[in-house]
């Protein structure tokens, strides 16, 4: 895929060229939106809005990493939506499990070879991690998602978040430490290999 050619074609009004870019980046956009928002419906809206905004603002793209530019639109959309929800809190609908517990996302269950019990444990662990991410402040959350989940380097993450590299570095370190502290509350869910040193000595 020649990204720059597709961008130029889109700038010339070729919507199909832009849709090729959409298909390439849509999973990444949705995943980032979901990890920041913590809710499927909101992530779906944010991702769709991000692609519409990207097409309408394509003339503002000044080269460089298109992925970072697109992720910046996605994260900004998420921030806007989170701010709006802070003003008007909503209670998302969550699918109920047979035992009365809730899962935040039906996409959790991916390993079809695992037993139902293992699948439930995986889902609980992932829910615990997502809860710890959701407890982070927005600015810390976005950096953690971009680097640790999307695997961006610091420079690209800085472009995507619209902050200096030094800020990415410090925010990421603090975000990791806070998630680490949070995960100690779910010690029994953590695989033995991943239990933290302090917990091991405590036990």
């Amino acid at each position, binding site marked *: 895929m020649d990204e720059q050619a597709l961008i130029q074609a889109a700038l010339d009004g070729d*919507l199909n060229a832009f849709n090729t870019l959409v298909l390439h980046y849509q999973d990444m956009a*949705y995943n980032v939106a979901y990890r920041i928002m913590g809710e499927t419906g909101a992530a779906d809206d944010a991702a769709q809005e991000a692609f*519409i905004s990207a097409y309408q603002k394509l003339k503002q793209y000044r080269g460089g990493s298109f992925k970072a530019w697109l992720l910046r639109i996605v994260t900004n959309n998420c921030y806007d939506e989170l701010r709006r929800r802070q003003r008007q809190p909503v209670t998302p609908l969550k699918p109920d499990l047979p035992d009365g517990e809730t899962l935040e996302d039906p996409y959790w269950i991916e390993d079809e070879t695992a037993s139902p019990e293992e699948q439930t444990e995986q889902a609980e662990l*992932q829910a615990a991690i997502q809860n710890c991410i959701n407890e982070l402040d927005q600015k810390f959350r976005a950096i953690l998602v971009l680097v640790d*989940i999307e695997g961006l380097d610091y420079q690209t993450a800085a472009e995507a978040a619209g902050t200096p590299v030094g800020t990415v*570095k410090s925010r990421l*370190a603090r975000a990791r*430490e806070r998630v680490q502290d949070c995960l100690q509350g779910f010690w029994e869910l953590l695989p033995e290999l991943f239990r933290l*040193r302090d917990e091991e000595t405590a036990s």
Partner: protein
Amino acid sequence: MNNERTRTRELELLSAYLDGELSTTQRQALEARLQHEPDLHNRLENLRKTKIMVGYLPRLRAPRHYTLTPDMVTVRPQKKQPLFVTLRLASALAAILLVVLFGVEFLFTSGPLARPRLGAKPMMEVAVVADELEPLILWGEPGVGGGEGFVNGRGGDPEIMEQPVMVESMPIEPEVDVEEELPPEDEPELMLEAEALPPTDDEVGTLQIAPKDIDEQPILGINPEESGEIISRYADTVEEIPQPTWRVVVRVLQIAMGAVLIGGGLTWWLLHRHGLS
């Protein structure tokens, strides 16, 4: 404080080390410390586990395609919100007008353009009201005052009669011989502010001239109907001095602008708070 700063600095170094974002010299220095500092090594391992745990989260796939249709990307003119815009505009205009009105009022009342106040004016207005009352003191006709020095008078010393307090405010008229009997319409006008308030027939009537029959009426005395009473003649008769028209208009406009400002601002704030802005 320094410990906290050092700890934060170490945390950032460890985190960047995990991501391979340290320079060669930073990395070598940190690795040397890690070999001799087990606590620092433990912190690094915990951070590494946390990073792996977060990365353990599955990458989600988009639940649908987000491809765009021509209809989705048609640039539509943004919907204007007339209520919101009008409220904002009205509030801003009201605020400006309010400031201007207060400024105008200040300039023409306390400021450099203010007129000096006339001290005599209230007195004149009081005099007008007072003249409408029935007189408490009845002045006798000088000619029948009864002073011994007068030919016709019996009322007392003629010099006293000739120097009443009101002499200064009496209209300048040709001196009349006190011995001449004046017709009623030519009686001297005994008023406090004669120049400002020319006497009318009614007013002349209030300054009753004692009838010539001195046996029936007192020359200078108390109104018999009100004798023995302490009367405040002005308490219920002095009327409030009306404000100038322009000040009333300015005041009404100030109240109106204040109401628009407060109402518009409150509504704007409510709309903004409920996300309707």
